């Protein structure tokens, strides 16, 4: 079939009027692409029908503009939500279905109501807002809970640090006091040497004759047997005077211990006594002794 025959066959009119199948349309398009005459004729047929269509133009009622555009927008948004991950290109996924769903279930008064599609759009927007706000609330609540628990942890930590600090300050005050004792010229140092029972035992007494204050500084003492404690005695004119029992920390040599005030003494000695101390020293347990 030559070009002229093809044009006169009427197939271009059928094409323009939409009578052809997809396969037939493609054949026409292929021919038009390779034959300028056919392309020109086809264009003319289409434009002629366009003239015919435009001659019948009919301005829609003014109120329709908003309704149709709102309906269109609601439909494309609904479609976008219905098929957000569609692999099918929009070309083939023509929205006949969604649109029909959109329009047919409407009651006549709803369909004629300008606010119908807009209302549904607003409703959808409200629901979306509500969901978003719920999500935001949940997120904020979770964060608030986390913050509250962080705060509790921080407070615990802070009070722990504070008590450590207090303990440190107490220790520091004690050390300061000990240092004052050791540096003071008013204190006399009395070295207590180990007896035959405990040759390696060694301790010092710091005695202030003016204030009568007595401090004990243990260098080395064997651990006392269970239920026993070391007790310091002042010997005043050969008579033993109780100067107090040693705390465990003192026995271990960790720190100085202030003992009972002693009015007068020429020597100091330590014995092992039952816990809490004795009224009179058990001389068989004499561990250290030293003269002033």
């Amino acid at each position, binding site marked *: 079939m030559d070009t002229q025959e093809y044009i*006169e066959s*009427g197939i271009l*009119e*059928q094409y*323009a*009027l*939409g*009578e052809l199948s997809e396969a037939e349309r493609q054949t026409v*398009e292929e021919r038009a692409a390779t034959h300028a005459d056919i392309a020109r004729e086809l*264009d*003319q*047929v*289409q*434009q*002629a*029908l*366009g*003239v*015919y*269509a*435009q*001659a*019948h*133009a*009919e*301005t*829609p*009622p003014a109120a*329709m*503009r908003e*309704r*149709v*555009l709102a*309906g*269109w*927008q609601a*439909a*494309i948004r609904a*479609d976008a939500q219905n098929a957000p991950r569609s692999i099918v*290109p*929009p*070309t083939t*996924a*023509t*929205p*006949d279905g*969604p*649109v*029909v769903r959109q*329009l047919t279930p409407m009651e*006549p008064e709803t*369909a*004629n109501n300008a606010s119908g599609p807009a209302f549904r759009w607003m409703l959808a927007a409200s629901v979306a807002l509500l969901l978003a706000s719920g999500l935001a609330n949940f997120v904020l609540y979770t964060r608030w809970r986390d913050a509250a628990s962080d705060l509790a942890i921080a407070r615990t930590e802070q009070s722990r640090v504070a008590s450590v600090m207090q303990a440190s300050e107490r220790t520091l005050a004690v050390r300061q006091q000990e240092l004052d004792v050791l540096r003071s010229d008013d204190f006399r140092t009395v070295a207590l040497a180990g007896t035959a029972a405990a040759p390696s035992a060694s301790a010092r007494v710091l005695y202030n004759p003016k204030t009568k204050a007595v401090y004990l500084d243990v260098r080395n003492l064997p651990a006392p047997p269970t239920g026993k404690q070391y007790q310091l005695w002042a010997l005043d004119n050969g008579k033993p005077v109780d100067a107090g029992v040693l705390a465990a920390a003192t026995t271990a040599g960790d720190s100085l211990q202030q003992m009972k005030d002693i009015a007068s003494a020429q020597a100091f000695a330590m014995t092992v006594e039952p816990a809490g101390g004795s009224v009179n020293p058990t001389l068989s347990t004499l561990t250290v002794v030293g003269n002033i």
Partner: protein
Amino acid sequence: MSVNHPESLLPVPEELLVQRLRAREEAAMTVFYDKYSAALYGVILRIVKKEEIAEDVLQESLVKIWHSFTSYDASKGRLFTWVVNICRNLAIDKIRSRQYRVGSRTQPLEDSAALRQAAPTGFQPEHIGVQEITAKLNPEQKQVIDLLYFGGYTQSEVADELNLPLGTVKTRARAAIKVLAKLIR
């Protein structure tokens, strides 16, 4: 029309509108509506004959145009040709559904009161009216082209409807289109 917006008086170039629609710019659809709604609504109304149905079809058409815009190929024809065919197809689908089949076949198109008012179109200042076309086409040509374009008939269906040989229908259709082609300005 407002003096503050002189640009709205100028016709929107088709290429620009195509670009914006291709870019999925929703605001472009409003421009599209203002430019083409009269021509498209006129065609749809001629086919479905009821204003509320025509409105539905126009809205469906906008959705379809939006979704399938990637398949519009400017090299195959003008935007109007493409969109008017989408509208025609949807409108014809509508009248082919059951409730339209009954009783509307031979009803003259001019019976609808809504069709009497003449309307300007938004995109062709040198508008050709129905009167001018009716004056140029002879009644036989007009009858055939009306059934083909607004009736949703195929050429064979027109032949059946009018009790004419298919060849005669083809000849009249081609003649009518030739007359119309001479009106292209």
